[in-house]
């Protein structure tokens, strides 16, 4: 009878181990200190990247120069 309990305990421990390992896989990697500082509640590295995407205004200076010459 003892052998049965040992077997059940082994199965439960194995399942718990599998569950723990599986959870570990989905955990985010620890962030390096000093990086990813929060800026106004946002992740500075991402917002900084978004802000660095410049949206230029159209430059009509060449066209306007020609129009003024008419």
């Amino acid at each position, binding site marked *: 009878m003892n052998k049965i309990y040992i077997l059940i305990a082994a*199965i439960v421990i194995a399942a718990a181990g599998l*569950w723990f390992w599986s959870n570990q896989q989905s955990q985010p990697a620890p962030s390096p200190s000093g990086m990813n500082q*929060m800026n*106004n509640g946002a992740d500075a*590295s*991402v*917002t900084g990247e978004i802000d*660095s995407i*410049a949206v230029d*205004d159209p430059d009509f200076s060449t066209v306007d120069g020609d129009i003024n010459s008419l």
Partner: protein
Amino acid sequence: MKTLIILALSFGLVLPVAAQTNVSGTRSRDIQVDAQLKIKAAREEFQKSIQTTREEMQRALEVQRDALRVKLQGVKDARKKAAVERIDRNLGNLNARMTAHYANVLDQIDAVLVRIVGRTDKAQQDGKDVVSVRAAITSAQGAIAAARAAVTAQTGKTYALNITAEASLRSDVGVARKALHDDLMKTLALVKDAREAVRKVAVALAQVPGEKGSGPTSTPTTTNQ
């Protein structure tokens, strides 16, 4: 026999619990891959649509230039005639350059959003509440789609110079210049809205408790201000 029954019951109780984690993890990954494929398909569709519209616009531009040459036959001043032709060319070039720039900006914004979506999926898998982030993502995707539609439409536009008389060349040309300016500013506003919408997603994700931006490595972008 008793031993076998107890063993079977133990397996029956324990294994489904262990398997559940793996199944839900696989399902999440499938959803993530599916979402990224959809985003990639939308980007490719946009680029294809831009290319087709650009080709159609080039054909329309050729016809328009022939018509302008005929209209300019009545202009005696060769210098003014050359200036008008140059303005016509430059208006077309400016529209092509700006729409290509806006399309490129939208691709960059979209790439950032894809990575934020990936982080959101991961946060959700970790059991965090990402409802507000999902709402912001939906809003950002809508803003990008609206901006892309505007860029595609703008790419196909041409600005014919309606020359009425030599004396009114400046005002005649000014009408087309203003039309292009107004249209480009409207498109620009939508592109900026899309960028702001993606920024809001990043802010929403950062505000999820326990989510401190340990996600993707950002790719530096070189842009001109």
